[in-house]
């Protein structure tokens, strides 16, 4: 039984180690407090709002419910990992153009849920999009611009791949 652990995982493509952290420290706090990577947000602390969504091994999860001790060897992607260097990715750019972001607090989580969806299903229907982001609450937009933005981004990604 240990009261503190070192954990090594991959964050946005780069290896990272946190030292001497409580094993049940929330991944959300590991990112925000230990690593000062603050793009991932806390909205509720109970796995309801999805603002804390990150990808672990390609799957969207609520980082407020993942204890850091379970991260050993995992590949984590946060919103900071979506851009292509200094340029916004297609998904990010189209999302803004479509009006998907208003106050923006739910945006990082939604983008990651969308990223995971499009990586599995490059041509999703609107209903599939809605199901994929159903764990991400947005209070500002009514979801309409978000769904249309993801749909539009999916189309542009497919076009870029020449499919």
């Amino acid at each position: 039984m240990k009261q503190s652990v070192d954990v090594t995982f991959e964050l946005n493509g780069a290896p990272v180690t946190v030292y001497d952290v409580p094993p049940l420290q929330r991944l959300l706090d590991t990112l925000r407090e230990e690593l000062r990577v603050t793009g991932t947000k806390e909205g509720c602390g109970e796995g309801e709002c999805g603002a804390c969504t990150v990808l672990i091994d390609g799957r969207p999860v609520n980082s407020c419910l993942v204890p850091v001790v379970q991260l050993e060897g995992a590949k984590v992607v946060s919103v900071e990992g979506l851009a292509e260097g200094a340029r916004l990715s297609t998904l990010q750019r189209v999302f803004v153009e479509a009006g998907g972001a208003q106050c923006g607090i739910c945006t990082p989580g939604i983008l990651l849920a969308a990223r995971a969806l499009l990586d599995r299903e490059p041509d999703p229907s609107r209903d599939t999009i809605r199901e994929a982001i159903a764990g991400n609450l947005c209070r500002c937009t009514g979801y309409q611009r978000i769904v249309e933005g993801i749909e539009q981004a999916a189309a542009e990604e497919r076009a870029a791949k020449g499919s």
Partner: protein
Amino acid sequence: MSVGTSPPRSDGAAKVNGDARYIDDLAFPDMLHGVTVRSTTAHARYRGFKLDPDYDWTDIVVVDFRDIPGPNEINLIELDQPCLVQDIIRHPEEPVLLLAAPTRERALEARKHVHIREEPLPSVLDMDTAAAAETVIWGENNEIARLTIRKGAGVGCVDAALEANPGATLFEGEYCTGWQEQMYIEPQGVIAQPYGSRGVAVHGSLQCPYYVVKALTHLFKLHEDQVRVVQTVTGGGFGGKEEYPNILSCHAALLALKAGKPVKIVYSRDEDLACTTRRHPCVTRHRTAVGDDGSWLAAEVDIRLDGGAYATLSKVVLSRAIIHAIGPYRCPDVAFDGVVLATNTPPNGAFRGFGAPQVCFAVERHVDAIAAARGADPAAYRRFLAMQVGDTTATNQLLKGSVSANEVLDRALGMAEWESRRADCDRINASGGAPPQKPRPGLGDTPRLRGVGMSFFLHGGGFTGNGEARIQGEVEMVVQPGGDILILSGSTDIGQGQRTTHALIAADVFGLPLDRVTMALPDTSKVPDSGPTVASRTCMVVGKVIEDCAVALLARVMGEEAARPGPDAWGEAVDAFLKAEGDASVKLKYQTDPDTRWNPDTYEGDAYPCYSWACDVVEVEVEPDTLEVTISGFWSAQDVGKAIHPVIALGQLEGGSLQGLGFATIEEMRFKDGKLLNDRMTNCIIPTSLDAPEMHVHMVEEPFPGGPSGAKGIGELPMDGPAPAVLAAIEHATGIRLESLPASPEALMTAAARSAS
């Protein structure tokens, strides 16, 4: 970049790449974390606190009311709300003590080791008890505010009309709505720190930095120069961060000044739900004399709002409610009476719509009842009853122009294919229902009943009456070398796109690309008070001042004839002008229409400079065994005057509409002994993407000459209409008529059983 186009919003990139810094993303050196110790009883004498002597208090800062240098009052309309409890506790979760510690975890631990002594007193937990005034908890009789509106025959007008018109019918109804939580996804939070020699600076998630200035100067007996308030990127407000941050800022400031260090207070979600303001519950009674041709001869409306334990902004909520009591409908004689009652519950406050959603729900349900009794189509009846140019409102305001009643009705009903859709529903229901249009796991495939309902409504833009004349919102605009424009305004972007819309208005005047216009950060040490970011005024009123500033500067630099010069011509002219004159800037205030007449004592006259009109159509499916309601269609036409940035404007209409749809069906707050029972997001729910329908919203542009490019206020309009349209659709589908919200399956089942028996 011109008005009417939709460039990517200026803060968009930072919001999609993780760069945007909300208050909890910030950490200042030596910063402590603050928590609040709160009461548990609804009404009690406060007999002091005890710190557990076995706990280590060395690095914990403790603040109570004795640490307040000035009056223990939150500066708002009345001064009835203490910053910290002093002798009487008036609602559960009332703030008593503040603690700060080096880590949030430590502060939360310390809080477990504080004990508050409360001696319960008789409490008032509902409006009926408050009205009876046997126990008085506020003022002389628990009445926080009272307002009346009289037009024409005034008091007794309904009975008089019934007597004078033998063919007239009396229609009565009582309509109820409950609390609704704003549920901004970013909880409330601020960081306060010492500023200058005696002052305080606050960074925070807030809508009205200058309201916070006034609260701090009052509590700490400081001069405005000794206080600085900076709005950080704010994750939603909807009114919930209009006045509450006054309290939160005062709390953080008390801790910061005592500790001599920055102190961050960010609420956990359950604390935010339980303690901060929410929409006022409302009971509205209608008595209407309806002539045999269907016109309203006389209308009496009685409005009761539950204000909670303190006044906050309740009088203004009542004001908007009573002015909107019969919405867009014609009636020559009216008598409206409204009261806000105090109860020992956490105070209610601003939430988008601000009294209008409650009364719109009531009048729309009432109109549907009258239409049904007359065998009239709900749409046809509303067309008949709608005000037009030349009609007068309940406050005797002559509608001189900018009335889009017919257009929004035509558009929405047309998009929704009202008549054929209603007929399809009737056919489907007669045959026992149709399979769900969107099958989902676990929902079964039992044939659904289907219904379509509508609502028709208006919303006054800006502050009531002479509100804008009192506020005198100010904007400063500075021309930079090269022609870039800097706008300094106390308006805040809370998601609604203010930073982009305001910049676009200015960019349009000069013919500049959007990125040549910069919005200064809302920092009260640098920007003027443009008035609060509330009341659907930020685009219509402050945007107008921005337009005026730009027009003035353009004329000053390039002469009266210049129009949209473009970056090159403008840049050249600017450099020449600055060389000759040194600088170019202007500071302007909002100019109210001098012809506006408003009597704040009798509530007569021009209540609002303009009205936005709208029509919603909602289709629902109802599962016949469980009475689960699915919103299967939403069509709306909303008059925005002019869509400055169409994508942003559409986002406001869609977002507000979903809040209204949630208000109708699944949003509810339940209290026991004054305490919130469903204080977690798992139980205090809002719509997910699966609950939200595809929304078809059309923007009608019926310009308002007083707005920038004709724009009207639209922030609150979409909130008003969806709820009654949903209930009308449910009634069409099932025959179950509800007159209160939410239309939960449980409420529908109870109502169905009642009418069956």
